[in-house]
């Protein structure tokens, strides 16, 4: 909108960005659309970019602002030939969708690149004193973000602005791809996922935990952006949240139903969620909804040694069983 | 093999008196097998049978003081040669897991009881922790020619739920050790029958009858000697063997060894270290016989 587009995203990224564009140029003639990212309403934001024509490719921008998990769009485009640009974490959602037969591998062309992390807008907002409504300029390098807002310049260390999932990322490279631009960083799937935050939270007392969520969910507006941004919420138009048969939830604005919905969401994602964090990022009122899913994943990992979105041939643990469960100790009465 | 076996050691009162040779031989054997024993500091009496016949909390309190001494060593388990001490210490721990009972015991103590300390017998750790096969490897003087019966007594492995060791009706730990030492073991049918226990003083007649039956049986199966793991059993069968003979008109002269004594012998320890001279029924003839048998065997080889 006539806002000064930043000259950003230079440095190392440009090299693979051009390589990536070449990849897409090569593949686009066979595809209906390729989904990537481009600049948005201000220099601090990017937006999903649907490339259908050659000239669309020029607008493609890969940067730490490329936060959106574009895999979310894939089930809706079933039947079309779709190309998708993926970060490491996004690729795990693609794996998961493939695993559940929600997309066809032959219809999907995956463009990977070495991701060094994406920013957490709320961290930037905090660093800027709670306001990012007037961003005039933004430039990013591997180590810092330079932002100009309301005539003030800020130089923020990139490491501190990265999303939590990025600082402990074990899959910077796409786990599955047809094209890969740039040099792979190296995945470390064998390392344990980091659930320190969940563990810290669990140290709170029972009423503290309960009270925390009541307070947080009080401001939920039930817009379901968390659900709709989730690449693995595949029920979409038939979500149990808005149905009368089954009638799990009322439409009343009460915190009970809001909390219940989050449990439903987390449970339906058990063993499937790749912790891309889109639910939490999408929340317009900043409710930390990711923690429920992380907790669920932690339990899945501890009980079944399973991690979602790594192996397209695997079966989610709750859709399978073993006669003897090594890690389940049943209560003795 | 576990090279660093290390235990807190609770000798029990009789170790200073009537069963001094059990204590000596246990210590000697452990030393020979590189098993480190550290005495429980300033241990006191576990209360034995008399205490639990008076009151269970009193009995447990007496044991608890000792368990606490073990805890003060920074350890969570101890061993004892004596089955009576073993039973008391184990019972105390087990019963104190019940909150109500623990409160009663704590009422008698200076500080709250420790309920985490496990106790095992010397026999148990030799069999389970050290291992029969490892013992077999250490034998330098096999007990050639010795025909022996193993007598366990009643409380070494009963009640089974509490003691958690060996078979309650047919224990084999000592049989197996003796076999490993080169002795010929004859199955002793009354392995777990009672010898008369502490009735030696107040009801000698009972001991005469019960221990007499044990000696008769030993003879009937052709055992040259019996091995035991209990000071009371040993005392009744050894020290009172003359009394028994007298009372029953029998003529037994059966040496009653502590299993640790024979084990020590096979490991090459001296008779003195093992307190062989403390036995009332002299094992002299038998010991000489074994040496002779071994010589014959060696010559033949």
């Amino acid at each position, binding site marked *: 909108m006539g806002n000064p587009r930043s000259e950003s995203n230079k440095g190392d990224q440009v090299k693979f960005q051009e390589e990536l564009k070449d990849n897409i140029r090569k593949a686009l003639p066979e595809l209906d659309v390729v989904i990537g990212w481009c600049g948005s309403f201000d220099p601090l934001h990017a937006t999903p970019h649907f490339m259908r024509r050659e000239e669309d490719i020029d607008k493609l921008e890969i940067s730490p602002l490329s936060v959106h998990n574009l895999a979310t769009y894939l089930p809706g485009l079933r039947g079309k030939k779709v190309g998708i640009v993926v970060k490491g974490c996004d690729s795990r959602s693609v794996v998961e969708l493939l695993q559940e037969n929600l997309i066809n591998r032959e219809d999907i062309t995956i463009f990977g690149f070495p991701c060094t992390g994406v920013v957490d807008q709320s961290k930037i907002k905090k660093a800027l004193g709670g306001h990012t409504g007037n961003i005039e300029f933004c430039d990013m390098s591997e180590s810092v973000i330079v932002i100009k807002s309301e005539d003030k310049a800020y130089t923020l260390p990139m490491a501190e602005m990265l999303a939590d999932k990025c600082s402990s990322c074990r899959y910077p490279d796409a786990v599955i791809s047809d094209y890969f631009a740039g040099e792979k960083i190296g995945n470390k799937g064998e390392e344990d996922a980091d659930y320190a935050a969940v563990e810290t939270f669990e140290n709170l007392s029972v009423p503290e935990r309960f009270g925390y969520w009541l307070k947080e969910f009080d401001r939920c507006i039930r817009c379901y952006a968390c659900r709709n941004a989730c690449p693995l919420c595949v*029920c979409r138009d038939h979500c149990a949240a808005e149905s009368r048969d089954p009638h799990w939830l009322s439409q009343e604005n009460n915190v009970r139903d809001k909390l219940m919905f989050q449990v439903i969401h987390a449970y339906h994602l058990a063993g499937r969620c790749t912790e891309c964090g889109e639910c939490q990022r999408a929340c317009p009122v900043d409710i930390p909804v990711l923690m429920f899913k992380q907790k669920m994943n932690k339990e899945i990992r501890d009980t079944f040694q399973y991690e979602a979105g790594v192996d397209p041939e695997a079966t989610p643990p709750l859709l399978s069983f073993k006669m003897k469960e090594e890690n389940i100790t049943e209560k003795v009465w | 093999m576990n090279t660093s076996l290390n235990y807190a050691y609770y000798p029990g009162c009789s170790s200073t008196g009537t069963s001094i040779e059990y204590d000596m031989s246990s210590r000697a054997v452990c030393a020979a097998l590189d098993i480190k024993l550290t005495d429980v500091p300033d241990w006191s009496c576990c209360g034995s049978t008399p205490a639990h016949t008076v009151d269970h909390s009193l009995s447990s309190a007496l044991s608890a003081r000792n368990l606490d001494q073990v805890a003060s060593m920074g350890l969570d388990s101890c061993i004892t040669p004596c089955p009576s001490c073993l039973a008391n210490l184990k019972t105390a721990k087990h019963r104190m897991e019940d909150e109500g009972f623990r409160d009663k015991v704590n009422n008698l103590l200076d500080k709250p009881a420790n309920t985490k300390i496990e106790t095992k017998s010397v026999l148990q750790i030799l069999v389970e922790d050290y291992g029969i096969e490892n013992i077999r490897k250490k034998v330098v003087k096999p007990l050639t020619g010795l025909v022996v019966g193993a007598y366990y007594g009643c409380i070494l492995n009963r009640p089974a739920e509490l003691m958690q060791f060996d078979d309650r009706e047919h224990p084999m730990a000592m049989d197996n050790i003796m076999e490993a030492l080169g002795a010929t073991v004859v199955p002793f049918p009354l392995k777990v029958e009672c010898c008369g226990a502490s009735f030696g003083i107040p009801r000698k007649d009972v001991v005469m009858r019960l221990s007499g039956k044990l000696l008769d049986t030993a003879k*009937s199966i052709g055992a040259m000697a019996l091995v035991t793991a209990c000071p009371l059993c040993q005392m009744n069968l050894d020290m009172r063997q003359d009394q028994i003979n007298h009372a029953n008109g029998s003529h037994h002269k059966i040496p009653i060894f502590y299993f640790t004594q024979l084990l020590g012998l096979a490991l090459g320890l001296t008779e003195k270290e093992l307190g062989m001279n403390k036995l009332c029924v002299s094992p002299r003839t038998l010991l000489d016989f074994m040496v002779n048998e071994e010589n014959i065997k060696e010559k033949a080889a």
Partner: protein
Amino acid sequence: MKVGVFVCHCGSNIEATVDTAAVAAAAREFPGVVFATDTMYTCSEPGQDEIVNAIKEHNLGGIVVASCTPRMHEQTFRRTVERAGLNKYLFEMANIREHVSWIGKDREANTNKSVDLVRMATEKLLRNRPLYSKKFDINKRVLVIGGGVAGIQAALDCADGGLEVVMVEKTSTIGGKMAKLDKTFPTVDCSSCILGPRMVDVAQHPNITLYAYSEIEEINGYVGNFEIKVKKKATYVNWDSCTGCGICMEKCPSKKATDYFNEGIGKTTAINIPFPQAIPKKAKIDPDFCTKLTKGKCGVCAKVCPSGCIDYEMQDEFVTEKVGAIVTATGYDLFDWSVYGEYGAGRYPDVITGLQYERMLSASGPTGGHIKRPSDGKEPKNIVFIQCVGSRDKSVGRPYCTGFCCMYTAKQAILTKDHLPDSQSYVFYMDIRAVGKLYDEFTRRAMEEYDTKYIRGRVSMIYPKGEKLLVRGADTLMGSQVEVDADLVVLAVGAEASAGASELAEKLRISYDSYGFYMEGHPKLKPVETNTAGVYLAGACQGPKDIPSSVAQGSAAAAKVLGLFSKDQLESDPQVSIVDIKRCIGCGKCIQTCPFGAIKEMEFRGMVKADVIETICQGCGICTSTCPQGAIQLQHSTDNQILSEVNALCQF
């Protein structure tokens, strides 16, 4: 829906601790309820008539009965409402007897709880829909598993009734435990004289196919249409040509094989026919003892066999049979008495089991019917029988009474006197269980006429004393410890579920109790049915039984099968899952988790959808709890029905 509620007193069973009138009064306040009353016996004829009349008078659309467990009378009341013209699924039960009145005495709490249960039932009923069965064809063949006396009876009754029968027996001969017995109580008639002809009938019946030395590998399908995979274990002898002449047995040089038929009393040859009357009378090789199979040397049997049927290369073979019903008659095994250290745990050769003794008594047994001490072959003089070994003993996990040991011990004591007139038998017993026609008279005879010394008390210890065994017990009637110097000790070892019973139950999808005995459909009213349609029980697999009871149950099971097959088609249970095509997104999670393969993919307007095959669906509802959007719903247990019950109980 207009709902009628009937709260049953069940005489005083419920009324004594539940204020049924108050429950009915409370029910009148529930949504939908237009009629509620308490009745004395709702299941009685007047009780049922009251329901029918109320439906007509008040134009009711659904009925709740609060009474006993639905396992007792759900079918009864479903028929009642059907009689009144309602669909039988417009009915719900609240269990206020087994789950309320019988488990607590607090009348206020019980009444309150009953009101809750009726409220839940009503809320669910309001969401019930009429359901209609489908008909499907059935295969009128029956499988009998186990060839003991119960299985033989069931098979012959079915075969005589015109059904094709497939019998699978895991050992190489039918006959079961009964074939091992010398005589039977209380008539003391020859066991093999009674059983033998029945075994021959099985072999010769045109309707019976016998798979001996075979096991059930796999069971699929459902009532009317089971598919069974049978494993025919390798016998190394071609049974089509084996004539049972026994020459191989005579020549086999390996004579140290365990003689299972003789309970380990004596040894047998590596190739053997278990006993002369075996059916089928065919030889098989015990591969553990055959030197040709273990070491590659020998081959004598192959050389001597006149019909050339030895085949050392034989492999297990699998056949598939299709049947419509299954009778399970897998019998029992003896308790492993070696846990009794005080009885020697098997160390003393002259302490044997009753069944071993039975083989010793049998003229065709290894001792030719002579009673001999296994240790030295001498005739015993003092014989001690100990009852309740592995029965009525919590400490070994067998608190139940086996029930027939008292009788067989009495029989053995009598036979002992017949065999060895100079002998003296002692029986240590706790109680004598002699319930049956002529049974008590029989045990009395053992005491009165055969001078068997019955000692009321248990034995605490047996130990060798010279050549004899010292048996130390108690005579509680005298109040003293007693000792017997015995030459032979016979343990009346109790029965336990046969080895592999639980694995078979899992294949059959039937339940078993904590001892492994199969659960009957109802302890009183469905003694031979199971909770799985088309699977019936006969004999000791359901619990220890003597011969007459086993035979009776075999016949009863056969009658059930014949009844089931009296129709050409069966009605399917309509409580199956159904897919809401609009909500289904075709993710296939239900297909993935359905244990029965009852859901398939289908195409609907170019989209993939799930589709339930009604006759295959068993109504477990795993699909419903798997489907995230609730598109597949198990009818009669829908999400909304369960949620309505939750909501009836919990409203913040």
